Protein backbone atom coordinates (compact mmCIF):
# COMPACT_ATOMS: atom_id res chain seq x y z
CA UNK A 1 0.00 0.00 0.00
CA UNK A 2 1.28 3.45 -0.90
CA UNK A 3 2.11 5.95 1.79
CA UNK A 4 -0.24 8.82 1.17
CA UNK A 5 -0.25 12.05 3.10
CA UNK A 6 -3.03 10.94 5.40
CA UNK A 7 -1.20 7.85 6.54
CA UNK A 8 1.98 9.85 7.04
CA UNK A 9 0.13 12.09 9.42
CA UNK A 10 -0.97 9.13 11.52
CA UNK A 11 2.40 7.45 11.78
CA UNK A 12 3.18 5.62 14.99
CA UNK A 13 5.76 8.26 15.80
CA UNK A 14 3.30 11.16 15.62
CA UNK A 15 0.65 9.29 17.56
CA UNK A 16 3.24 8.41 20.18
CA UNK A 17 4.40 12.02 20.51
CA UNK A 18 0.79 13.10 20.91
CA UNK A 19 0.15 10.64 23.74
CA UNK A 20 3.49 11.39 25.39
CA UNK A 21 2.78 15.11 25.43
CA UNK A 22 -0.69 14.55 26.88
CA UNK A 23 0.73 12.39 29.67
CA UNK A 24 3.59 14.81 30.37
CA UNK A 25 1.19 17.71 30.65
CA UNK A 26 -1.11 15.65 32.87
CA UNK A 27 1.67 14.61 35.23
CA UNK A 28 2.90 18.21 35.47
CA UNK A 29 -0.57 19.38 36.50
CA UNK A 30 -0.95 16.59 39.07
CA UNK A 31 2.54 17.16 40.48
CA UNK A 32 1.83 20.89 40.83
CA UNK A 33 -1.45 20.27 42.64
CA UNK A 34 0.11 17.68 44.90
CA UNK A 35 2.93 20.05 45.88
CA UNK A 36 0.34 22.57 47.06
CA UNK A 37 -2.17 20.26 48.74
CA UNK A 38 0.05 17.58 50.31
CA UNK A 39 1.20 19.63 53.35
CA UNK A 40 -2.35 20.85 53.97
CA UNK A 41 -3.74 17.34 53.62
CA UNK A 42 -1.17 16.07 56.14
CA UNK A 43 -2.26 18.75 58.60
CA UNK A 44 -5.96 17.96 58.22
CA UNK A 45 -5.19 14.28 58.66
CA UNK A 46 -3.51 14.95 62.01
CA UNK A 47 -6.52 16.97 63.13
CA UNK A 48 -8.89 14.21 62.07
CA UNK A 49 -6.77 11.61 63.87
CA UNK A 50 -7.00 13.63 67.06
CA UNK A 51 -10.76 13.85 66.73
CA UNK A 52 -10.93 10.11 66.03
CA UNK A 53 -8.92 9.37 69.20
CA UNK A 54 -11.23 11.57 71.22
CA UNK A 55 -14.28 9.79 69.80
CA UNK A 56 -12.87 6.40 70.82
CA UNK A 57 -12.06 7.24 74.41
CA UNK A 58 -14.72 9.72 75.46
CA UNK A 59 -13.46 9.97 79.07
CA UNK A 60 -9.95 10.99 78.07
CA UNK A 61 -8.88 14.54 78.77
CA UNK A 62 -5.58 14.40 76.97
CA UNK A 63 -3.54 12.17 74.73
CA UNK A 64 0.17 11.63 75.05
CA UNK A 65 2.33 10.05 72.39
CA UNK A 66 4.21 6.99 73.66
CA UNK A 67 7.92 7.07 72.99
CA UNK A 68 9.40 4.28 70.90
CA UNK A 69 6.04 3.23 69.46
CA UNK A 70 5.02 5.17 66.39
CA UNK A 71 1.39 6.16 66.36
CA UNK A 72 0.73 4.90 69.89
CA UNK A 73 -1.04 7.24 72.26
CA UNK A 74 -1.93 6.95 75.92
CA UNK A 75 -5.33 8.35 76.89
CA UNK A 76 -5.00 10.28 80.13
CA UNK A 77 -7.60 11.15 82.73
CA UNK A 78 -6.57 13.06 85.86
CA UNK A 79 -2.97 12.28 85.02
CA UNK A 80 -3.56 8.53 84.93
CA UNK A 81 -3.44 6.31 81.87
CA UNK A 82 -6.93 4.90 81.28
CA UNK A 83 -6.46 3.44 77.80
CA UNK A 84 -4.16 3.13 74.84
CA UNK A 85 -5.07 4.22 71.34
CA UNK A 86 -2.96 2.39 68.78
CA UNK A 87 -3.05 2.03 65.02
CA UNK A 88 -3.95 -1.32 63.49
CA UNK A 89 -3.61 -2.45 59.94
CA UNK A 90 -4.86 -5.46 58.08
CA UNK A 91 -5.24 -6.70 54.53
CA UNK A 92 -8.89 -6.57 53.55
CA UNK A 93 -10.77 -7.68 50.48
CA UNK A 94 -9.48 -4.92 48.22
CA UNK A 95 -6.46 -3.43 49.97
CA UNK A 96 -5.17 -2.31 53.32
CA UNK A 97 -7.66 -1.44 56.05
CA UNK A 98 -6.21 1.15 58.42
CA UNK A 99 -7.77 1.35 61.82
CA UNK A 100 -7.41 3.04 65.16
CA UNK A 101 -8.01 0.81 68.17
CA UNK A 102 -8.68 1.88 71.74
CA UNK A 103 -7.60 -0.74 74.27
CA UNK A 104 -8.08 -0.51 78.02
CA UNK A 105 -5.15 -0.96 80.39
CA UNK A 106 -6.28 -4.52 81.22
CA UNK A 107 -6.02 -5.54 77.55
CA UNK A 108 -9.67 -5.35 76.49
CA UNK A 109 -10.82 -3.51 73.42
CA UNK A 110 -12.95 -0.42 74.00
CA UNK A 111 -13.78 0.60 70.45
CA UNK A 112 -12.21 1.05 67.05
CA UNK A 113 -12.50 3.34 64.07
CA UNK A 114 -11.65 2.67 60.45
CA UNK A 115 -9.48 5.44 59.09
CA UNK A 116 -9.25 4.29 55.50
CA UNK A 117 -10.20 1.25 53.48
CA UNK A 118 -11.02 0.16 49.95
CA UNK A 119 -13.76 -2.36 50.70
CA UNK A 120 -16.91 -2.80 48.61
CA UNK A 121 -19.44 -0.01 49.18
CA UNK A 122 -22.59 -1.43 50.71
CA UNK A 123 -20.97 -4.66 51.92
CA UNK A 124 -17.47 -4.36 53.35
CA UNK A 125 -17.79 -0.75 54.37
CA UNK A 126 -20.41 -1.79 56.94
CA UNK A 127 -17.48 -2.81 59.16
CA UNK A 128 -17.46 0.83 60.24
CA UNK A 129 -21.12 0.81 61.34
CA UNK A 130 -22.12 0.54 65.01
CA UNK A 131 -24.03 -2.73 64.47
CA UNK A 132 -20.79 -4.56 63.72
CA UNK A 133 -18.50 -2.41 65.84
CA UNK A 134 -20.33 -2.80 69.13
CA UNK A 135 -19.65 -6.56 69.08
CA UNK A 136 -16.03 -5.80 69.88
CA UNK A 137 -16.48 -3.68 73.00
CA UNK A 138 -15.05 -5.28 76.15
CA UNK A 139 -13.60 -8.36 74.46
CA UNK A 140 -10.10 -9.62 75.17
CA UNK A 141 -7.79 -10.89 72.40
CA UNK A 142 -8.74 -14.58 72.82
CA UNK A 143 -12.40 -13.86 72.02
CA UNK A 144 -11.66 -11.90 68.88
CA UNK A 145 -12.51 -14.70 66.45
CA UNK A 146 -14.94 -14.50 63.56
CA UNK A 147 -17.67 -17.12 63.70
CA UNK A 148 -20.64 -17.85 61.46
CA UNK A 149 -22.99 -18.91 64.26
CA UNK A 150 -24.25 -15.95 66.30
CA UNK A 151 -22.84 -15.81 69.80
CA UNK A 152 -22.08 -13.12 72.32
CA UNK A 153 -18.63 -14.46 73.00
CA UNK A 154 -17.15 -14.02 69.53
CA UNK A 155 -17.54 -11.79 66.49
CA UNK A 156 -20.25 -12.52 63.95
CA UNK A 157 -19.24 -11.87 60.34
CA UNK A 158 -20.98 -9.26 58.20
CA UNK A 159 -23.32 -10.75 55.61
CA UNK A 160 -21.53 -10.85 52.27
CA UNK A 161 -18.31 -9.51 53.68
CA UNK A 162 -16.62 -12.38 55.48
CA UNK A 163 -13.16 -11.42 54.27
CA UNK A 164 -13.55 -7.87 55.50
CA UNK A 165 -14.90 -9.07 58.86
CA UNK A 166 -11.96 -11.46 59.30
CA UNK A 167 -9.47 -8.79 58.28
CA UNK A 168 -10.82 -6.18 60.67
CA UNK A 169 -10.94 -8.69 63.52
CA UNK A 170 -7.42 -9.94 62.82
CA UNK A 171 -5.98 -6.42 62.71
CA UNK A 172 -7.66 -5.50 65.97
CA UNK A 173 -6.67 -8.75 67.66
CA UNK A 174 -3.01 -8.12 66.87
CA UNK A 175 -3.26 -4.59 68.22
CA UNK A 176 -4.98 -5.76 71.40
CA UNK A 177 -2.33 -8.45 71.97
CA UNK A 178 0.46 -5.94 71.52
CA UNK A 179 -1.13 -3.52 73.95
CA UNK A 180 -1.78 -6.27 76.50
CA UNK A 181 1.93 -7.17 76.48
CA UNK A 182 2.93 -3.52 76.64
CA UNK A 183 0.54 -2.72 79.50
CA UNK A 184 1.64 -5.78 81.47
CA UNK A 185 5.26 -4.65 81.10
CA UNK A 186 4.34 -1.23 82.31
CA UNK A 187 2.70 -2.60 85.46
CA UNK A 188 5.78 -4.56 86.56
Amino acid at each position, binding site marked *: MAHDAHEENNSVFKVGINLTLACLLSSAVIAGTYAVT*APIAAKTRIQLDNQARKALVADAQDFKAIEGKTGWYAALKDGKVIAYVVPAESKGYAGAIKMLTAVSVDGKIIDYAILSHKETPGLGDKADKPAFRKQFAGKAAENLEVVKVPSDKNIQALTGATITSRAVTKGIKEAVEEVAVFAADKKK
Partner: protein
Amino acid sequence: MKNLWEIFYKGLFDQNPIFRLALSLCPALAVTSNVYNALAMGLSVMFVITANNVVVSIFRKWVNPKVRVPVYITSIATIVTVLILTLQAYLPDIYKELYLYLNLIVVFAIILARAEVFAAKNPVFPSFLDGLGMGAGFAGAMVFIAVVRELFGNGTLMGMPVFGASYDPALIMILPPGGFIVIGLMIASFNLIGQHQAKLKEAKQGSDA
Protein backbone atom coordinates in the same frame (compact mmCIF):
# COMPACT_ATOMS: atom_id res chain seq x y z
CA MET B 1 -27.54 34.19 22.52
CA LYS B 2 -30.53 31.90 22.17
CA ASN B 3 -28.26 29.21 20.83
CA LEU B 4 -25.92 29.41 23.80
CA TRP B 5 -28.86 29.17 26.18
CA GLU B 6 -30.09 26.10 24.35
CA ILE B 7 -26.65 24.49 24.63
CA PHE B 8 -26.84 24.90 28.38
CA TYR B 9 -30.54 24.14 28.77
CA LYS B 10 -30.69 20.87 26.83
CA GLY B 11 -28.69 19.08 29.54
CA LEU B 12 -31.33 19.90 32.14
CA PHE B 13 -34.35 18.24 30.49
CA ASP B 14 -34.23 17.33 26.79
CA GLN B 15 -30.97 15.43 27.14
CA ASN B 16 -30.80 14.91 30.88
CA PRO B 17 -27.88 12.48 31.36
CA ILE B 18 -29.68 10.18 33.77
CA PHE B 19 -33.38 10.47 32.90
CA ARG B 20 -33.16 10.87 29.10
CA LEU B 21 -29.79 9.47 28.00
CA ALA B 22 -29.69 6.83 30.76
CA LEU B 23 -25.93 7.32 31.13
CA SER B 24 -23.99 7.09 34.39
CA LEU B 25 -26.71 5.15 36.19
CA CYS B 26 -24.17 3.53 38.51
CA PRO B 27 -23.57 6.64 40.67
CA ALA B 28 -27.26 7.47 40.40
CA LEU B 29 -27.88 4.25 42.31
CA ALA B 30 -24.88 4.11 44.57
CA VAL B 31 -24.57 7.62 45.97
CA THR B 32 -28.21 8.72 46.18
CA SER B 33 -29.25 7.20 49.48
CA ASN B 34 -28.87 10.61 51.11
CA VAL B 35 -29.10 14.15 49.79
CA TYR B 36 -25.77 15.38 51.11
CA ASN B 37 -23.70 12.75 49.30
CA ALA B 38 -25.75 13.08 46.12
CA LEU B 39 -25.22 16.83 46.07
CA ALA B 40 -21.47 16.52 46.68
CA MET B 41 -21.19 13.85 43.99
CA GLY B 42 -23.31 15.88 41.56
CA LEU B 43 -21.18 18.99 42.05
CA SER B 44 -17.96 16.96 41.68
CA VAL B 45 -19.16 15.51 38.39
CA MET B 46 -20.37 18.93 37.25
CA PHE B 47 -16.91 20.33 37.91
CA VAL B 48 -15.13 17.47 36.14
CA ILE B 49 -17.37 17.49 33.07
CA THR B 50 -17.12 21.28 32.66
CA ALA B 51 -13.36 21.40 33.17
CA ASN B 52 -12.84 18.46 30.85
CA ASN B 53 -15.00 19.99 28.12
CA VAL B 54 -12.92 23.18 28.31
CA VAL B 55 -9.62 21.28 28.19
CA VAL B 56 -10.72 19.05 25.31
CA SER B 57 -12.01 22.06 23.42
CA ILE B 58 -8.77 24.01 23.87
CA PHE B 59 -6.63 21.10 22.66
CA ARG B 60 -9.06 19.80 20.02
CA LYS B 61 -6.85 20.88 17.08
CA TRP B 62 -3.74 19.14 18.41
CA VAL B 63 -5.23 15.82 19.46
CA ASN B 64 -4.55 13.09 16.93
CA PRO B 65 -7.89 11.46 16.01
CA LYS B 66 -6.34 8.01 16.33
CA VAL B 67 -5.59 8.45 20.03
CA ARG B 68 -8.34 10.85 20.98
CA VAL B 69 -10.02 8.50 23.46
CA PRO B 70 -6.82 7.80 25.46
CA VAL B 71 -6.06 11.51 25.47
CA TYR B 72 -9.56 12.38 26.70
CA ILE B 73 -9.35 9.73 29.40
CA THR B 74 -5.96 11.09 30.47
CA SER B 75 -7.47 14.54 30.70
CA ILE B 76 -10.46 13.29 32.74
CA ALA B 77 -8.18 11.28 35.02
CA THR B 78 -5.99 14.32 35.60
CA ILE B 79 -8.93 16.52 36.52
CA VAL B 80 -10.37 13.89 38.84
CA THR B 81 -6.99 13.45 40.56
CA VAL B 82 -6.72 17.20 41.05
CA LEU B 83 -10.24 17.21 42.48
CA ILE B 84 -9.41 14.33 44.85
CA LEU B 85 -6.23 16.01 46.08
CA THR B 86 -8.08 19.28 46.65
CA LEU B 87 -10.99 17.69 48.51
CA GLN B 88 -8.57 15.68 50.63
CA ALA B 89 -6.81 18.85 51.73
CA TYR B 90 -9.67 21.30 52.16
CA LEU B 91 -12.89 19.29 52.63
CA PRO B 92 -11.84 16.08 54.41
CA ASP B 93 -15.39 15.34 55.60
CA ILE B 94 -16.82 15.20 52.09
CA TYR B 95 -13.74 13.33 50.93
CA LYS B 96 -14.29 10.69 53.59
CA GLU B 97 -17.87 10.09 52.42
CA LEU B 98 -17.10 10.05 48.71
CA TYR B 99 -13.60 8.71 48.28
CA LEU B 100 -14.79 5.27 47.26
CA TYR B 101 -16.72 6.78 44.36
CA LEU B 102 -14.52 9.70 43.32
CA ASN B 103 -12.09 7.55 41.36
CA LEU B 104 -15.02 6.10 39.44
CA ILE B 105 -15.78 9.53 37.96
CA VAL B 106 -12.96 8.85 35.50
CA VAL B 107 -15.00 6.20 33.72
CA PHE B 108 -18.40 7.91 33.79
CA ALA B 109 -19.75 7.50 30.28
CA ILE B 110 -21.40 10.90 30.26
CA ILE B 111 -18.09 12.78 30.61
CA LEU B 112 -16.35 10.96 27.77
CA ALA B 113 -19.54 11.25 25.71
CA ARG B 114 -19.65 15.05 26.03
CA ALA B 115 -15.95 15.33 25.16
CA GLU B 116 -16.41 13.18 22.07
CA VAL B 117 -19.80 14.48 20.90
CA PHE B 118 -19.51 18.17 21.72
CA ALA B 119 -16.23 19.57 23.05
CA ALA B 120 -14.07 17.97 20.33
CA LYS B 121 -16.01 19.86 17.64
CA ASN B 122 -16.90 23.17 19.27
CA PRO B 123 -15.14 26.32 20.56
CA VAL B 124 -14.30 26.77 24.22
CA PHE B 125 -17.26 28.82 25.46
CA PRO B 126 -20.07 26.65 24.05
CA SER B 127 -18.19 23.58 25.33
CA PHE B 128 -18.03 25.15 28.76
CA LEU B 129 -21.79 25.78 28.69
CA ASP B 130 -22.46 22.27 27.41
CA GLY B 131 -20.47 20.79 30.29
CA LEU B 132 -22.14 23.09 32.80
CA GLY B 133 -25.62 22.23 31.51
CA MET B 134 -25.00 18.49 31.39
CA GLY B 135 -23.35 18.64 34.81
CA ALA B 136 -26.25 20.61 36.24
CA GLY B 137 -28.71 18.13 34.74
CA PHE B 138 -26.75 15.29 36.30
CA ALA B 139 -26.47 16.98 39.70
CA GLY B 140 -30.15 17.93 39.66
CA ALA B 141 -31.19 14.39 38.83
CA MET B 142 -28.92 12.99 41.57
CA VAL B 143 -30.36 15.34 44.18
CA PHE B 144 -33.92 14.64 43.06
CA ILE B 145 -33.46 10.87 43.37
CA ALA B 146 -31.77 11.35 46.74
CA VAL B 147 -34.57 13.58 48.08
CA VAL B 148 -37.16 10.93 47.25
CA ARG B 149 -35.07 8.09 48.64
CA GLU B 150 -34.00 9.82 51.84
CA LEU B 151 -37.45 11.20 52.51
CA PHE B 152 -39.28 7.89 52.21
CA GLY B 153 -36.48 5.55 53.20
CA ASN B 154 -35.24 7.39 56.26
CA GLY B 155 -37.83 10.08 56.98
CA THR B 156 -35.17 12.81 56.81
CA LEU B 157 -33.82 15.48 54.46
CA MET B 158 -30.14 16.40 54.68
CA GLY B 159 -30.20 14.45 57.95
CA MET B 160 -33.04 16.56 59.42
CA PRO B 161 -36.15 14.63 60.52
CA VAL B 162 -39.19 15.58 58.45
CA PHE B 163 -42.02 13.23 59.31
CA GLY B 164 -41.46 12.99 63.06
CA ALA B 165 -40.86 9.92 65.17
CA SER B 166 -44.13 8.16 64.32
CA TYR B 167 -43.06 7.64 60.68
CA ASP B 168 -41.92 4.11 59.95
CA PRO B 169 -39.33 4.43 57.16
CA ALA B 170 -39.62 2.21 54.09
CA LEU B 171 -36.16 0.69 54.19
CA ILE B 172 -36.40 -0.50 50.59
CA MET B 173 -36.01 3.08 49.36
CA ILE B 174 -32.56 3.38 50.93
CA LEU B 175 -31.47 0.00 49.58
CA PRO B 176 -30.46 -0.40 45.90
CA PRO B 177 -33.93 -1.54 44.73
CA GLY B 178 -35.33 1.80 45.88
CA GLY B 179 -32.88 3.53 43.56
CA PHE B 180 -34.02 1.39 40.63
CA ILE B 181 -37.67 2.14 41.39
CA VAL B 182 -37.18 5.92 41.58
CA ILE B 183 -35.00 6.06 38.44
CA GLY B 184 -37.44 3.85 36.52
CA LEU B 185 -40.42 6.02 37.44
CA MET B 186 -38.50 9.19 36.57
CA ILE B 187 -37.41 7.87 33.16
CA ALA B 188 -41.01 6.88 32.49
CA SER B 189 -42.36 10.32 33.39
CA PHE B 190 -39.64 12.10 31.35
CA ASN B 191 -40.60 9.92 28.39
CA LEU B 192 -44.28 10.77 28.89
CA ILE B 193 -43.51 14.49 28.94
CA GLY B 194 -41.25 14.09 25.91
CA GLN B 195 -44.01 12.33 23.97
CA HIS B 196 -46.50 14.98 24.97
CA GLN B 197 -44.16 17.75 23.80
CA ALA B 198 -43.53 15.98 20.50
CA LYS B 199 -47.28 15.69 19.94
CA LEU B 200 -47.78 19.38 20.67
CA LYS B 201 -45.02 20.25 18.20
CA GLU B 202 -46.61 18.04 15.55
CA ALA B 203 -50.02 19.58 16.09
CA LYS B 204 -48.50 23.05 15.81
CA GLN B 205 -46.69 22.19 12.60
CA GLY B 206 -49.90 20.63 11.29
CA SER B 207 -51.88 23.82 11.87
CA ASP B 208 -49.08 25.94 10.35
CA ALA B 209 -49.10 23.97 7.13
